[in-house]
């Protein structure tokens, strides 16, 4: 009490800082007192004359245990008190004491709150702050107390939580304060505090966020009314993460949406997929930002307000032909009425490569392995005895020089280094940073949102790495012209710059950097003693001195639109027009790199010099106009929408390159001197237009029906096939609204069953001009009139029956909410992709032309999506602990149901009926022969044998599955596969994302895991895996050391070490035979993100204008668990030069801050 008085005394002089502190203390005290107050007795005896009221209060407190809350200033106006009471009740005592006083009181729990009498207005007093105490009870819809409801003071983070009976109490409130009472699953209420009586606040339930609105195609819809398969998420998942782009941030967050990145290159775009294998021609979801088809890779993640996935035909129907494989809708933030809100966030991340093969560099070990692998094939050692001996000496004594002059040839260097070329090539860490500023606000007439974003990522290379700069600005304005008309603009400008060393986009020696660096000899060193580059070191030399390339992308976009509403918002018309220009300009050059192979040698050069440039221009325009009518007539809810969409895209490109730069310092075409420059240029256009409509009908909020259709046209089809009619329908039954369900609503607060069926077309399976024949041209070989003239040739044939690839989609779903806290959605679906455009059945040769593509294949994908979210809060050490958990799991499987491969050849990789795309055909490995006798007695394996005789110890033994006494793959058909069978499948199954988050006491924490439950990985002929089994030149990786078969290591994973085993002799030979022994599970779980933040609510900051300041740590891809061989990243199993040979993925460790003003 004393303490309180002191503080109160200071209020005269002080500011809001203390008021805030006070409030915190009041709340804390309240919470603590609550625990003990009920233990005190109530009878009071008083005998005082003309004492101060404060003394009386002290006396009462001692006897009753009741606290007094009052304002010192108020008390000073008190008259002296005389009182004589014996065993009185508290009420009686107080009544006596407060008689004739200018204030009154109220009892709240174990406290007496002293307040001025209503008639006494304090307006004329300098102190406006009058602390009041309130208490009350929060009830649910049945009148029972609601425990755990949050009672907060609006505009602050202060508040309390109701107890087991639903009671709450707050002390020392500003009487202007507003209480915000919220509880999961109930509508939030705001009430003015009332200190005169116990407040009774009844919350009404909202079964499964009844009023939540979901963005759907051309509009929004109440979540509860949805009948299609839709998943949505707030843009919050993207905030404050060191993600390079939105795709990486959405990974795992939406069930059914699979996002894969093929490399860790800065600026690399991830691939999106909705609901599994789409078409043999590929097919990806339509991605729209604010209703406009956009590349979201370069979008500012902080601009994202929500992301919605439309998964079934019914929900995607209004988008027609490009939505055959789902739609991803992104909406950006908009301004809200109110004072300007400024937000700044920044993030600085240190990145570190996730996985690289472990290279053995010890010269002695390496030279022994190289000799072994080499002599296995060539019969002689790669290095002679002198060299081998020196390598071993150097292993024992690393101070010996790594480079010596060849003892037999004074003009040649011999290298005995221990170079880990990965370490030479890559930096231990690289970094990225992001800055984002946004301003939003508005008044009754105008709302606005402006944002700017800068992102910089540096690549992984040690020398002169690549870098990527992204700059985004967005401005959104909404003018309320009249009550019924809004006009808005949504402008965005994006600029990216990617600057890179030339070598690894050009074929300067023999190709891909990640392949070459994996086989750069560890015995070699980057530089010679005289400082010149070695031959092997040219890989690094090019990074430093080999020229640079630079790609700049400029992308301005503007949407202008209007919305109108008439007749009490029952009828609306909306329209917009978008223009976007995308320009890329690339300029690059490379120069020849000098290197030396020995002393007294002429300088050699790798590569050549050239300059090149290319530029393109893409102009995209879209028009949307639609109208909707929405009305409820009694129990009938009706909403109809009809609209029109038109898009036109025009693209042009040119490129030029020329050899022989005059100077290696000026890498422009102007300074190139080659006599035969190479130029090219081309262009294309496409257009779509369609009308679409949607009809929603609901009866009594129970029975929901939606019918969608789009009459869709695409320029990619012949004129008589431009249009396709694509209808869908879906229905929902809200079982929980039925009378018979009433008894269950305590547990199951919402239950909805959904079903949909629909057709969508796919115009993406055709090129822009596949519908029309194009005539080829070229110089002829004949000499006519002394020259070789140009000729034009008959065009390719186009099937006159060529028509739309169509997708037939069935979906059945269930939405359920348990205890108003757990939301679960499950969908089963079947998607038939029919009439896929591919090679038709063979036609007679008299056709005289390459057979045109036909609508000749079908496939069926079946799968399910499940998402579960649980949100709750409880009191932890007197503070509300809000937490959420979410789980997304989805799966799909595809089977080819029609394809022109009558003999069902799987060998050769063609599709066949019954195939699950991604199937790996292979052999079952029994083990490794431990003796020659065992090998010779086993079934004949010679059909799979490569360079080496297989009938001996140390070689692989396959199972003779068909017991025909020989090991082979038959004729490579499904009917006669020999001993081969499907040993795995590369399609990811059981994709999942699991996340959790909590906030407590200014601390926020979130964690998110993502992964794949089932997937096979066969390393193929990747040198990163096979090491010297691939080629004697490959490096020695740790996974083979001690793991190759010898009589001493009979349990080795690999057979006897010899070079050229994995792939050199062709497919399905030796170790290039797919087999169970070297088949890995590519399933993984990865810690995608972990964020810990702390928000400061320091009044100090508020004084300088900062409403909120949050500091956080965020980690991206911090940890993973998988079953892959060492060096392989579960997300980087691709690579055109072999598995894993891609720009490496990196973990991100970042620190950042957000400030709101």
């Amino acid at each position, binding site marked *: 009490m004393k303490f309180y008085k002191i503080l109160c005394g200071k209020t005269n002089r002080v500011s809001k800082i203390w008021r805030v502190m006070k409030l915190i203390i009041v709340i804390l005290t309240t919470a603590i007192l609550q625990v003990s107050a009920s233990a005190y007795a109530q009878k009071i005896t008083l005998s005082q004359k003309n004492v101060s009221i404060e003394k009386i209060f002290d006396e009462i407190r001692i006897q009753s245990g009741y606290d007094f809350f009052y304002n010192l200033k108020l008390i000073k106006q008190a008259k002296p008190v005389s009182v004589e009471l014996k065993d009185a009740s508290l009420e009686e005592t107080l009544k006596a004491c407060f008689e004739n006083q200018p204030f009154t009181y109220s009892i709240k729990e174990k406290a007496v709150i002293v307040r001025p009498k209503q008639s006494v207005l304090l307006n004329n007093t300098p102190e406006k702050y009058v602390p009041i105490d309130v208490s009350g009870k929060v009830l649910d819809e049945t009148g029972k107390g609601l425990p755990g409801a949050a009672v907060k003071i609006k505009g602050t983070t202060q508040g309390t939580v109701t107890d087991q009976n639903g009671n709450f109490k707050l002390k020392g409130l500003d009487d202007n304060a507003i209480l915000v009472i919220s509880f999961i699953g109930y509508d939030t209420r705001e009430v003015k505090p009332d200190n005169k009586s116990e407040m009774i606040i009844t919350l009404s339930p909202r079964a499964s966020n009844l009023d939540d609105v979901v963005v759907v195609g051309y509009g929004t819809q109440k979540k509860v009314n949805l009948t299609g398969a839709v998943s949505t998420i707030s843009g919050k998942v993207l905030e404050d993460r060191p993600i390079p782009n939105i795709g990486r941030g959405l990974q795992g967050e939406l069930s059914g949406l699979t996002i894969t990145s093929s490399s860790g290159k800065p600026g690399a775009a991830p691939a999106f997929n909705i609901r599994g294998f789409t078409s043999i021609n590929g097919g990806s979801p339509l991605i729209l930002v604010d209703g406009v088809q956009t590349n979201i890779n370069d979008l500012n993640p902080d601009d994202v307000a929500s992301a919605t996935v439309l998964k079934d035909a019914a929900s995607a129907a209004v988008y027609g032909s490009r939505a055959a494989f789902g739609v991803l809708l992104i909406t950006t933030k908009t301004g809200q009425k109110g004072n300007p809100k400024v937000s700044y966030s920044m993030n600085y991340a240190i990145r570190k490569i996730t996985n690289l093969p472990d290279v053995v560099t010890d010269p002695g070990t390496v030279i022994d392995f190289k000799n072994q692998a080499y002599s296995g094939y060539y019969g002689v050692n790669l290095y002679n005895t002198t060299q081998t001996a020196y390598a071993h000496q150097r292993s024992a004594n690393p101070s010996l020089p790594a480079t010596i002059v060849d003892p037999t040839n004074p003009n040649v260097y011999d290298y005995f280094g221990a170079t880990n070329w990965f370490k030479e090539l890559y930096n231990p860490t690289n970094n990225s940073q992001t800055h984002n500023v946004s301003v939003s606000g508005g008044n009754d007439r105008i709302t606005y949102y402006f944002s700017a974003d800068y992102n910089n990522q540096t690549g992984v290379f040690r020398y002169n790495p690549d870098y990527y700069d992204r700059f985004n600005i967005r401005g959104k304005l909404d003018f309320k012209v*009249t*009550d*019924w*008309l809004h006009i808005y603009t949504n402008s965005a400008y994006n600029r990216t710059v990617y600057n890179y060393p030339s070598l690894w986009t050009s074929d300067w020696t023999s190709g891909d950097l990640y392949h070459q660096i994996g086989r750069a000899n560890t015995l070699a060193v980057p530089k010679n003693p005289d400082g010149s580059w070695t031959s092997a070191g040219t890989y690094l030399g090019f990074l430093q001195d080999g020229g640079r390339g630079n790609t700049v992308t400029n992308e301005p976009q503007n949407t202008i639109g209007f919305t109108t509403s*008439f007749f009490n918002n029952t009828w609306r*018309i909306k329209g917009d027009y978008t223009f976007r220009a995308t320009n890329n300009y690339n300029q690059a050059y490379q120069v020849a790199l000098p290197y030396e192979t020995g002393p007294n040698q002429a300088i050699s050069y790798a590569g050549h010099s050239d300059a090149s440039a290319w530029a393109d221009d893409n102009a995209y325009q879209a028009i949307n*106009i639609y109208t909707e009518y929405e009305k409820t007539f009694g129990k009938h809810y009706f909403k109809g929408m*009809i609209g*029109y969409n*038109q898009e*036109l895209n025009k693209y042009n490109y040119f490129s030029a390159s020329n050899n022989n730069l005059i100077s290696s310092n000026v890498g422009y075409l102007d300074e190139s001197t080659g006599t035969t420059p190479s130029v090219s240029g*081309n*262009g*294309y256009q496409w*257009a*779509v*237009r369609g*009308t679409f409509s949607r009809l929603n009908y609901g009866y009594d909020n129970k029975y929901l029906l939606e019918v969608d259709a789009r*009459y869709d*046209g*695409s*320029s990619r089809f012949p*004129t*008589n096939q*431009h249009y396709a009619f694509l209808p869908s329908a879906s229905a929902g039954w809200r079982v929980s609204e039925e009378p018979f369900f009433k008894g269950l609503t305590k547990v199951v607060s919402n239950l909805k069953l959904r079903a949909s069926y629909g057709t969508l077309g796919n115009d993406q399976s055709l090129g*822009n*001009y596949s519908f*029309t024949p*194009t005539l*080829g*041209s070229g110089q*002829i*070989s*004949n*000499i*006519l*009139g*002394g*020259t*070789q*003239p*140009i*000729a*034009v*040739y*008959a*065009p390719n*044939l186009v*099937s*006159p*029956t060529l028509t739309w690839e169509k997708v037939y989609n069935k979906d059945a779903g269930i939405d359920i909410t348990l205890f108003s806290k757990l939301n679960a959605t499950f969908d089963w679906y079947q998607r038939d992709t029919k009439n896929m455009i591919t090679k*038709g059945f*063979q*036609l*007679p*040769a*008299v*056709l*005289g*032309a390459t057979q045109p593509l036909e609508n000749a294949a079908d496939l069926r994908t079946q799968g399910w999506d499940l998402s579960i979210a649980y949100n709750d809060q409880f009191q932890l050490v007197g503070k509300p602990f809000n937490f959420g958990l979410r789980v997304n799991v989805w799966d799909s499987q595809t089977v080819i149901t029609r394809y022109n491969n009558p003999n069902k050849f799987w060998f050769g990789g063609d599709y066949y009926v019954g195939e699950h795309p991604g199937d790996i055909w292979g052999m079952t490995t029994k083990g490794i022969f431990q003796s020659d006798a065992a090998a010779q007695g086993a079934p004949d394996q010679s059909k799979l044998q490569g360079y080496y005789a297989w009938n001996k110890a140390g070689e692989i033994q396959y199972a003779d599955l068909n017991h025909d006494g020989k090991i082979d793959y038959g004729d490579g058909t499904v009917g006669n596969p020999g001993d081969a069978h499907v040993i795995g499948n590369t399609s990811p199954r059981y994709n999942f994302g699991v996340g959790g988050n909590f906030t407590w006491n200014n601390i926020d924490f979130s964690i998110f895991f993502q992964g794949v439950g089932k997937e096979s990985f066969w390393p193929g002929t990747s040198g990163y895996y096979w090491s010297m089994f691939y080629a004697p030149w490959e490096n020695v990786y740790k996974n083979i050391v001690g793991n190759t078969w010898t009589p001493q290591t009979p349990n080795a994973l690999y057979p006897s070490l010899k070079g050229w085993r994995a792939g050199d002799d062709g497919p399905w030979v030796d170790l290039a035979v797919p087999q169970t022994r070297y088949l890995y599970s590519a399933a993984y779980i990865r810690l995608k993100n972990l964020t810990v933040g702390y928000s400061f609510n320091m009044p100090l900051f508020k004084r300088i204008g900062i409403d909120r300041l949050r500091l956080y740590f965020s980690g991206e891809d911090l940890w993973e668990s998988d079953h892959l061989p060492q060096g392989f990243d579960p997300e980087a199993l691709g690579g055109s030069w072999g598995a894993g040979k891609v720009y490496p993925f990196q973990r991100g460790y970042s620190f950042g801050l957000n400030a709101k003003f």
Partner: protein
Amino acid sequence: MYNSKIITMKKIHIIIISGIMMNILSLYSCKKDSFLTRYPVSSLTEQNFFANANDLNTYCNGLYSYLPGSNSVALGDQQSDNYENNPFNKVVAGQLTLPTSASQAGWTWTYLHQVNYFLQNYQKANASQAVKNHYVGIARFFRAWFYFDMVKKFGDVPWYGTTILPNDDGDLYKARDPRQLVMDSVMADLTFAANNINPTGPSGTITKWTAQALLARVALHEGTFREYRGIAGWQTILQTAGSAAQAVMQSGNFKLYSTGNPKVDYLNLFLFYAPSDPQNAEVILGYYYSNTLHVTNALDGNMRAYGLSLAKGLMNSYLTINGTPFTSTPGYATQMITQEFNNRDPRMMQTALQPTVVYGDLKGAQTLGFAPTGYAQIKYYDPTTPTYNTNYNAGIDFRYGEMLLVYAEAKAELAGSGTGSFTQSDLDLSINLLRDRVGMPHLMMNVAIDPVLAASYPNVGGSLQNVILEIRRERRVELACEGFRYDDLMRWEAGPLLAQQFLGMYFPGLGTYDLDGDGQPDIALVTSKPSNPVSGVSYFVVGTDIHLSNGNSGNVVVNPTLVKTFTDPKNYYFPLPTTELLLNKNLKQNPGW
């Protein structure tokens, strides 16, 4: 007041906006949509090509790929009794097996598609009918040639005058059309071509005279084909052949190439490099190469190839310098290669390499391995080529000499069966011009019947049997190696001539021989390799390295174990590919296959 104003405004806007939307929606009543009609902007299409005469010309340039280059015209006879190669030619030996795929069988139709596509689209061009007809003539010329080749190979073939669409089952799955119908179409095409193609053009291009020449060639083939199989109407076709050849002869544009040197003129005719060279006088259509444009052929490499060699039968066809058959000369059969070139038709030593002659890098009898019969081809071989496989002597696709032979044969065949006349003057303006060039005595109407020829072509009879046989000899000799012989045997129904061993040069027995006449032995025929071989002598173990027709003596037998067969009618046609028979049930295999 204010409210009502709003409502009025609202109503107006609603009306306007609804109107706009209705308009937009009404676009969809029409099926063709110009907004969606987007043709390629950076490629040639049917919509933007065939605009003018230049486009027609550009397209027709692509059709010239059908023309045979030097390799075809200089080595075209390997599939005939003029050669005995190692390895042997499967067609000649009757060893062809059933092909499976269309490309294996030569049942390929892409070229026809190219031609027909033009004929379907040329009308779009903005050009005069005469100009259009010129290019149509070129296209029809090539279509005729394509069908001529297809008919020669397969007999009946389906005729397609237009391109086929993938869903045009009627055309895709139709049966073969009768040969007569197809060949009548071929000759109609050629007649159109001859009447409409410009009489002159850039070098290497098709002219009216090329079309006449092909018409003559085709009509002679078809006319005699029908004649020897008793198919009615052959006379008309042979008259066409004669008149087409005559038209070329009377055009005044062409004459035989001659410098008055019988020993080299024939050889030099085929060492013809550019249209400006004097040989061009004889050339109706040349296929040119250029060392400046780096467009060359590989004739020297192909002619030096292991195993390529001319047959003794061709050598025996050359008359003696007196104009009498070599085969009538006593002891001709046991003449060695060193003797038999003496006193012969000069075309012999200008076609085959005489062993005593050094001619570039060409190796003849003395190496045996390269030309196992001993007779290496010299015709078309350019000994001056600076680098291997970079010859640029032109291939002569049509020459005046052939026209003279067509004229003589057509007229003689007709006259021999009672249609028209054939006199010494006909011989003098055809065969005897060829003989004049090489200094050979004239062929006379009263020439004696050569029993060897008569035995070879037993179906030749009639009043002009003697002349017709000699015309056939002249044709074999003059056009040797140029790719006519197999077709000639087929149309003369003389296929059985292929079913025999075509021998090589004669060896009287074991021993060493000086074949190149330098006084040093070159080769030795032995029964076993000597332990101390003489340097410079190649040893051949008889029965192992070399086979002779009579054990240790006789003519060289290149393929001793080969049994050649010729079955009538099977071997007069090629087999159709089995996959195509499966795809099209209306397509039937040729007889015997």
